[in-house]
């Protein structure tokens, strides 16, 4: 069995390794080294997809990154990936590809009716059609557009493949391994620079693989292999194939997408599928080559029409004929190379050249081979629906605006060349100000902003001799700039065929009476007529024309269409191309998978998870965890079939009745040392700190300069110049940065040092009326009586041989203590408390019970310290020192901060004493309110009060305490709930705070 369009003995595929694959459900085979595109073409398959708007049949157009049409959905190893370029994906056993944007099949596609209706789908169709009536938008237009939009189908399955990120640094990054890249990398590496050479294809060599040239008497491919093997043996060189540099960012940071595993059949578990590289390069050489541009003619999107360079690549790399009766349509010499390759392999092409009787080495060679050349000819239109079967050609008149004659000839493929466009995408992304080169009819790099330089075709140099010479020169001069070493290598001798000048002809005129669609942008179905329409309708800026017509906005980013679009606009507008300007080149150059961008940061690896030293105990004892900042904290400890509410109620009740223990390791801790520590705290906190004695703790409030509360917590004076500050779990990092800012930037004269000690200490809070009894058993030699160790006192104690810090502080509002031990002893501390606590009905409690306890006590936390409240809003006026200045104090006297109608903290209870109030509910005073209604405040924290056995919430309400006794409505429109509530004091339980001091 052979592939019908495969040549014997031509190409670099491995004919010993047959690979079977599926396309649209049917089985085919190709060889190792094939791309999906070359394998399909070898089987004579041209129809690969349908176009976006008109659903016209589309085939392969190029052979690489420039491909606008051949996007397929890939299924392999259990994953499904849309919009994969068939010209870039390597063939692997078992791969299955399907056509996109067609239903029920690519051969019979219902959507193709759009093609017949194309006069109803002009540029701006969506903008014009879906404007009115307005009420149609949500129910009719939007669902319709959503259904029509997009090409492939995104998978909703979890992606189980492995993706990685890598950071790399080098002196010189060379992007592209054609002649320019090889020459630059080689000469730079020889002078000792650290070089990274990358190539997007699976083989190094670029144009050397397909061009008929010699370097130092070796064929292009032989020379490339020689250079590569030498580079690969050098310790200062990294080479990578299958790697596309797709983004050029600030300070010479370059992003690269490497396909590490896509071509492997049995890759190991730890081989990533793809890898994203961040490369910081001192210098960058852009040897990205050029992309052939098409000539625009009638029905130029028909399957079987190729870029001539693509046809040559299929032939020379894969031994695949894109047709057996080719028509070559060109305005320059390079298409002659394709014709010569056909002829050498027994196929007779016909060349249509828009130029008048041109002469050059290649033309002469073609003539000598007996190839038929028709000068001054152009293809008017291709014919055939799913595959080209003939073309109408014609002799151009003198002004090339019409035809002297027309004839129809048979052909099975058309290879088109409209000259070359340097790939300036990366240069432009780097900030290089491009200039328009009149001789090339294209933009080339001009003024660099960063340390980059383009060499070879990317810089508009289309001959080998110059390219190799420039490559050697740039490679050694740039490496000398970095390493200081000068190395002069002999520049190799090259031999190539000379090219003549190209013809400035890029769009075939329509003969009178014909209305063939002439496509500029294939993937987005933008035809010449669409651009003409946009200009007629008044669009002038090329950026506007682009968005209105969607020219160059598809996944191929207009690699083959942008310049022709510009030419068209400049012709119609009677402007030269540089006046029209070009649209912005943006990363990524080619599509990058979301998997590669995300890398290993998925699921549990998305953020580091911090666990307390007691985590294992919690887990073993049925804790249900909750994310608290970056920490995992027990939310409750489940007993039997308890719900969250049941468990929280049980745990909180036990604290009020007996004693509970809570893991408070996650609390932020900051160690503060230095002779000016007291003065510093006095400036940072709103209350007075100068007179806090050693061995005592104090509650403090921190503000931002705008007067808003930043955080609260207790700070303890451990010794004369040593303090232990605690912050809330969520604000720990921000508070440290805040303190560092004031110490380093604002008051550098203060002799204070701060450092985070959060992870050095494990903490347990024991709270409840029986906590003292428990403590006396845990610390039998310590005096823990109310007189011996009063509220807000601190001492260092011996906890069964472990040095511990004991604080008498309380968040639950009960008699409570906190014990801190070095983290390594955390589990020991916890288990000891549990063990001894059994005699006191001790139960562990989680964050849910903790919230219940603090809410009914009226203690504020995150939901109240939401960045919009000042101390008086939370009835914390007593914490404000009148005698001293502190961060944010000046803001508190601003007019808006002292007005009586400010929203302030209160408690609320549902009138029925049963219905829980959703957090975030808005408070209004009219049950039958109509939107927009005046909002009096909002519910910040809700709980089920265990003290009163009814729901209780904290709320921030206009008027604050003056509202106590009033009835309001807590409404949550999203939950369609409206609850009548009564305003009460925020201190619902133990308003005098007697328990903590008992």
């Amino acid at each position: 069995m052979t592939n019908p369009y495969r040549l014997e003995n031509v190409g670099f595929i491995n004919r010993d390794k047959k690979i079977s694959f599926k396309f649209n459900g049917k089985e085919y085979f190709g060889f190792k080294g094939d791309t999906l595109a070359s394998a399909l073409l070898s089987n004579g398959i041209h129809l690969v997809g349908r176009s976006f708007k008109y659903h016209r049949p589309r085939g392969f157009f190029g052979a690489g990154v420039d491909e606008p049409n051949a996007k397929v959905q890939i299924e392999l190893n259990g994953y499904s990936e849309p919009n994969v370029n068939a010209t870039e994906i390597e063939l692997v056993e078992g791969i299955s590809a399907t056509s996109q944007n067609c239903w029920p099949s690519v051969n019979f596609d219902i959507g193709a009716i759009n093609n017949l209706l194309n006069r109803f789908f002009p540029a701006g169709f969506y903008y014009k059609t879906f404007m009115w009536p307005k009420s149609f938008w949500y129910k009719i237009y939007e669902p319709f557009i959503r259904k029509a939009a997009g090409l492939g189908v995104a998978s909703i399955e979890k992606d189980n493949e492995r993706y990685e990120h890598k950071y790399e640094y080098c002196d010189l990054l060379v992007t592209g391994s054609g002649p320019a890249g090889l020459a630059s990398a080689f000469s730079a590496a020889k002078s000792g620079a650290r070089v990274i050479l990358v190539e997007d294809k699976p083989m190094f060599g670029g144009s050397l693989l397909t061009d008929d040239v010699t370097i130092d008497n070796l064929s292009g491919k032989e020379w490339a292999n020689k250079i590569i093997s030498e580079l690969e043996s050098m310790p200062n060189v990294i080479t990578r194939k299958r790697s596309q540099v797709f983004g050029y960012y600030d300070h010479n940071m370059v992003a690269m997408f490497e396909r590490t595993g896509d071509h492997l059949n049995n890759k190991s578990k730890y081989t990533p599928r793809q890898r994203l590289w961040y490369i910081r390069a001192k210098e960058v050489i852009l040897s990205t080559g050029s992309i052939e541009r098409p000539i625009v003619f009638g029905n130029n999107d028909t399957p079987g029409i190729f870029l001539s360079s693509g046809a040559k690549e299929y032939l020379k790399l894969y031994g695949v004929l894109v047709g057996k009766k080719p028509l070559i349509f060109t305005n320059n010499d390079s298409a002659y190379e394709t014709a010569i390759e056909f002829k050498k392999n027994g196929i007779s092409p016909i060349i249509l050249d828009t130029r008048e009787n041109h002469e050059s080495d290649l033309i002469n060679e073609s003539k000598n081979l007996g190839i038929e050349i028709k000068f001054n000819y152009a293809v008017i239109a291709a014919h055939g629906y799913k595959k080209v079967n003939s073309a109408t050609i014609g002799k151009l008149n003198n002004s090339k605006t019409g035809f002297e004659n027309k004839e129809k000839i048979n052909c099975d493929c058309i290879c088109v060349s409209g000259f070359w466009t340097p790939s300036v995408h990366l240069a432009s992304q780097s900030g290089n100000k491009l200039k328009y080169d009149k001789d090339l009819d294209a933009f080339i790099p001009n003024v660099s902003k960063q340390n980059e330089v383009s060499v070879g075709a990317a810089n508009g140099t289309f001959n080998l001799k110059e390219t190799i010479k420039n490559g050697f020169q740039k490679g050694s001069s740039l490496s000398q700039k970095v390493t200081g070493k000068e190395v002069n290598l002999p520049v190799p001798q090259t031999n190539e065929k000379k090219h003549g000048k190209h013809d400035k002809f890029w769009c075939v005129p329509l003969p009178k009476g014909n209305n063939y669609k002439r496509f500029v942008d294939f993937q987005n179905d933008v035809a010449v007529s669409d651009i003409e329409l946009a200009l007629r309708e008044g669009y002038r800026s090329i950026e506007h024309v682009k968005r209105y017509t969607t020219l160059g906005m598809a996944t191929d980013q207009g690699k083959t269409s942008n310049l022709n679009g510009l030419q068209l606009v400049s012709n119609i507008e009677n402007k030269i191309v540089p006046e029209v300007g070009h649209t912005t080149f943006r990363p990524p150059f080619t599509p990058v998978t979301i998997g590669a961008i995300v890398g290993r940061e998925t699921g549990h690896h998305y953020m580091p998870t911090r666990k307390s030293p007691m985590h294992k105990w919690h887990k073993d004892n049925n804790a249900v965890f909750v994310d608290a900042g970056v920490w995992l904290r027990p939310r409750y400890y489940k007993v039997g079939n308890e719900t969250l509410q049941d468990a929280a109620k049980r745990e909180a009740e036990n604290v009020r009745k007996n004693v509970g223990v809570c893991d408070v390791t996650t609390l932020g801790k900051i160690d503060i040392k230095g002779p000016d520590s007291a003065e510093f705290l006095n400036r940072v906190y709103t209350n007075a700190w100068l007179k806090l004695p050693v061995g005592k703790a104090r509650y403090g409030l921190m503000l931002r300069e705008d007067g808003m509360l930043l955080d609260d917590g207790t700070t303890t004076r451990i010794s004369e110049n040593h303090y232990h500050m605690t912050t809330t779990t969520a604000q720990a990092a921000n508070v440290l940065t805040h303190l560092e800012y004031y110490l380093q930037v604002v008051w550098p004269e203060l002799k204070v040092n701060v450092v985070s000690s959060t992870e050095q200490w494990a903490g347990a809070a024991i709270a409840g009326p029986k906590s003292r009894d428990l403590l006396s058993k845990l610390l039998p030699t310590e005096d823990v009586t109310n007189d011996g160790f009063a509220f807000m006192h601190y001492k260092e104690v011996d906890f069964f041989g472990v040095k511990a810090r004991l604080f008498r502080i309380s968040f639950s509002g009960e008699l409570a203590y906190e014990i801190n031990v070095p983290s390594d002893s955390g589990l020991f501390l916890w288990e000891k408390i549990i063990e001894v606590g059994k005699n006191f009905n001790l139960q562990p409690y989680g964050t849910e019970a903790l919230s219940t306890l603090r809410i009914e006590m009226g203690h504020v936390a995150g939901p109240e310290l939401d960045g919009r409240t000042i101390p008086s809003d939370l009835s914390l006026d007593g914490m404000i020192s009148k005698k001293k200045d502190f961060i944010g104090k000046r803001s508190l006297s601003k007019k808006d901060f002292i007005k009586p109608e400010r929203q302030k903290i209160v408690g609320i209870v549902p009138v029925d004493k049963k219905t829980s109030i959703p957090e975030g509910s808005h408070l209004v005073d009219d049950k039958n309110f109509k939107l927009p209604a005046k909002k009096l405040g909002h519910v910040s924290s809700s709980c089920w009060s265990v003290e009163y056995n009814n729901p209780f919430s904290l709320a921030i309400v206009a008027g604050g305490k003056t509202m106590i006794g009033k009835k309001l409505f807590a409404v949550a429109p999203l939950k369609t709930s409206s609850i009548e509530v009564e305003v009460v004091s925020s201190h619902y339980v133990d308003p005098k705070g007697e328990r903590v001091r008992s």
Partner: protein
Amino acid sequence: MLHIKCPYCGLRSQKEFSYGGDANVKRPKLNAEVTDKEWDDFVYMRKSPKGHHLELWHHTSGCRQWIKVKRDTITHEIYQTAKIEEQIS
């Protein structure tokens, strides 16, 4: 992504830093008499210059020092970095 030379650690990726705003802002002295306007200017009003800008950056995931960075807001070029106590021209 910017490449910032921390005066303590050397060239590091922007990823390690957090931005801290205009380095020219001076906090009014403690206990000083400050008008509402002066205070509002200090708390809220910032210039958004086109071109040279002297900024504070915090080497958050590094040495945790606040540093000065003179940067071009258009080109992102960094002209100079310095320790907080050092003068930048």
